[in-house]
């Protein structure tokens, strides 16, 4: 299926949504990424990625209950879908597989 390809940032966001379960929303995801990786993203970029992932079917969303924060506005809470979970697994698996194929010598050289 076209569009199931997972970009680097998409993967990162998808993972973060998983980490934050069940409280993942825009600002939360942004903060978590910054905390975990040190990458500071603009909120609009995070939104764009989240909506794209939802369109691809890796995420689903629902509106939270309104809180006092944010001037009483609700958050959109993102959750991983089965497809999202599988995409993460596949990506992870592929990465490990590829990593394992690297000749030991190359790694040593790199570490040296």
């Amino acid at each position, binding site marked *: 299926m076209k569009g199931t390809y997972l970009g680097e940032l998409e993967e990162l966001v998808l993972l973060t949504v998983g980490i934050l379960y069940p409280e993942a929303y825009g*600002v939360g995801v942004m903060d978590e990424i910054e905390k975990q990786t040190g990458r500071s993203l603009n909120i*609009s970029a995070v*939104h764009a990625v989240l909506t794209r992932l939802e369109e691809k079917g890796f995420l689903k969303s629902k509106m939270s209950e309104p809180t006092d924060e944010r*001037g009483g506005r609700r*958050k959109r809470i993102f959750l991983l879908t089965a497809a999202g979970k599988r995409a993460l697994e596949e990506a992870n698996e592929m990465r490990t597989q590829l990593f394992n194929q690297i000749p030991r010598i190359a790694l040593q050289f790199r570490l040296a």
Partner: protein
Amino acid sequence: MKHAPPKWADRFLAWYCRHDLLEEIQGDVYELYDRTAKQNKRKADFTFVWNVLRFFRWKNIHKKKSSYNNSLISSGMVKNIFKVAIRNFLSQPGHSFLSVFGLTVSFVAAFLIMLWVMHETSFDRYHDDSQRIFKVMSHVESNGSFETYDAASFGIDVSGIPEITKQAPVITGDRWPNVLCFRGDPKNDCIYITGIYSKPALFEMLNFTILRGEKNPIDREFTVAISEDMANRLFNSIDVIGKTLKIDLWYEATITAVFKDVPTNSSLQFDFVMPVGVFQKLRGFSDESLANSFFSALIKTGSDVNAEVLTAKLNTAPALTESLKRDKVSYQAFPFTDWRLKSKFENGKSVGGKIQYVTLFIIIAILVLAMAVINFVNLSTARATNRAKEIGIRKTTGALRSGIVFQFLSESLVIVFFAFVLAVIATQLLLPYFNSMIGETLSVQLFSGVIPVYLLAFLILVALAAGLYPALVMSSFQPARALKGELSTRASGVKYLRKVLLVVQLSVSIGIVIFSGVIFNQLDFIIHKDLGYDRENMVRLEPTYKLLKQYDAFKTELLKNHAIASVTATNGNPLSLQGHTTGVSWQGKSEDTRVTFQTLGGNYDLVETFGFKLLDGRVFDPKKDTLGNEVMITKEAARVMSMTNPIGEKITIGSSQCVIIGVLDDFHTESLRNEKLPVVIYRQSVLQCSAIYVKYQSESTQQAMEIVRATYKKMEPDFTLNYWFQDETFDNMYKTETTASYMVVIFTIISLVIAVIGVVGLATYNVIRKQKEIGIKRVFGATVTNILSMLTKEFVIIILVASVVAIPFVWYSADRWLSGFAYRINMPWMIYITTFAGTLLLIALIVGLQGFKAANSNPVKTLRSE
């Protein structure tokens, strides 16, 4: 919330953001804002704005319409609309041609008028702070009314008016010493060039770009600033600083500057500027007489000052001296930028001038445009029946009314744009002809400055005006009926409106035709009016001092030839007498009577040469005139002085005693816009004359001119002969009127063309619509004449109504225009009748030709279809 983010950014977000996304996006940016605002409000504000801007992405922008409506104006739809528009356009070439041609013609007319109006209104506005420059006008009270002159006393003292920072007299004229004969190389013939005399302040006050030489060129005696053109004509170069020019035979002036040619939109036109001192020396004025002379004067204020305030200050001492006050002179500060268009004064008040023509042509432009738009509407609605089925289909397949309106509006926009492009090209091509006709040098500046914005607005406005009504009508068709072809009931309102529009259009055309007819008659009247003297076969020569000294010999030499009829010398041209005096007194003149007389000084043979009619007494006669104080007066002058038998009466002009020896019939001394004034003709010694008039036999112009030229060369070898034909001088006096009448003729033709297009379009449509009716009538035995009269009847009624509407309007406005002339024709009612009859005939012809084919065609053919 303690802190609030910038409101405008918040509103902007709310405005553009998709509604289903707004809540979360707003929530997130608010959360971020609150977080930062606790530490740094400014940074938070900045981040907020930045975030709002970053969210401004295609995905997040909400689309105005609901998704259903949205699909109506999709790209596919637009494509289809264009395709249908082009097919429609091509399927009826004649019809489309009429629509586009009508619009193009009216656009061209409007563009040309716009260019002309822009040119006329741009006069003298290119100077810095042009609103602060004023001309000083003098009003002289005489006999209870005011005469106005574009002049102020040379010695006017404005030191008491702190607002005035700069002041300069500008001495202009159309003969010596403003027209001088220069030569760059002593071997060449001299060339006559016109210039002005002024003070250095002129270059500070007005923007005349100095190309070479000093910034302040005429600040000392015998210096001259010349134009680029003059430099090129004399020296073929503009690097001429320091060269000297001979002024007449006695003086020399050093060129201190070369300035860029004076722009065409300057009311002051000149090729050289010299200091007033040169003028004074040439004319031999004493300081005192110079100070008392009146010349055109310009003043400039340091800040924006109201003209009335300035006028009031000019009318107090020391600007207005006691002696001027005694002579009943008052000054007025007249805005320099108004001079070009509003220079006509009546009884001391500005009463417009060329501005009237500007307004007239703006009105014509609007009318011509309106007519073209009406045409377009008429032609489009006439076609409605053809398009009805298309609209029916569109509607049944789900088109909304707004979609159809959009379709027709865009169709009209396309056609209007097409016509617009054609018109721009046509304007470009026609401009040289237009220029040579009106004697101007306009250029197409349609795409500079803010004009494109106006043009775009104009395009959209015209497209809307032309397209909206047809769009609304056609989009209102009910699909079921439209598909069955039942339109008659719905379309009756349309038909009615079409007739109303045609009435409007024809009344405008009839109005323009009649009005221009009136203008033409009046101008014809002026040009052929008996002025009281001849102007044919006469030439005016500019004499030099040397020639005047040999005047008698010159005259005798000329008269040896049969081609020369008579010769005289005067100090003024009867066509436009400059000499005015209120200083004439006679026996029995009451103390407070002030009458303006015009004066003309002349020599022997004056009456014979000009062809004045002698009513009583005798003319100047070398044998009888012993004292040199003889004068002739006109009938009007005798009336003013209430003399029943003026011959032999004594009058005083200024301080000299004169005796009346002859009475002449009245003659015109000014533009025919003004009344005849009383005239006194006194005898002047030849040396003080400014012009020699040579009357020659008719049909021998060339021969006479050769003789004049040869004799002149013999007596005055140093100078080139400068001469003007009297009848040409006369024609030039009415240049504005003649130009205007040419333009009126052109736009009359244009409006007629558009009206004809309208009638042709409608007549064609009518014939097509009534084809079956005609067929049936023919079958039942109607003759061709019957059918033609049926077809024309409708139009005849329309013309009748249009005439009834137009005539009172034209009558009123033409009468107002005519009342601007002191000598005017009576309202030429024949024009009204001929125009009416002509229109009737023309339209009958058009409709007849269209109908004739239909009436003659075989009825079987027309009835067999379907």
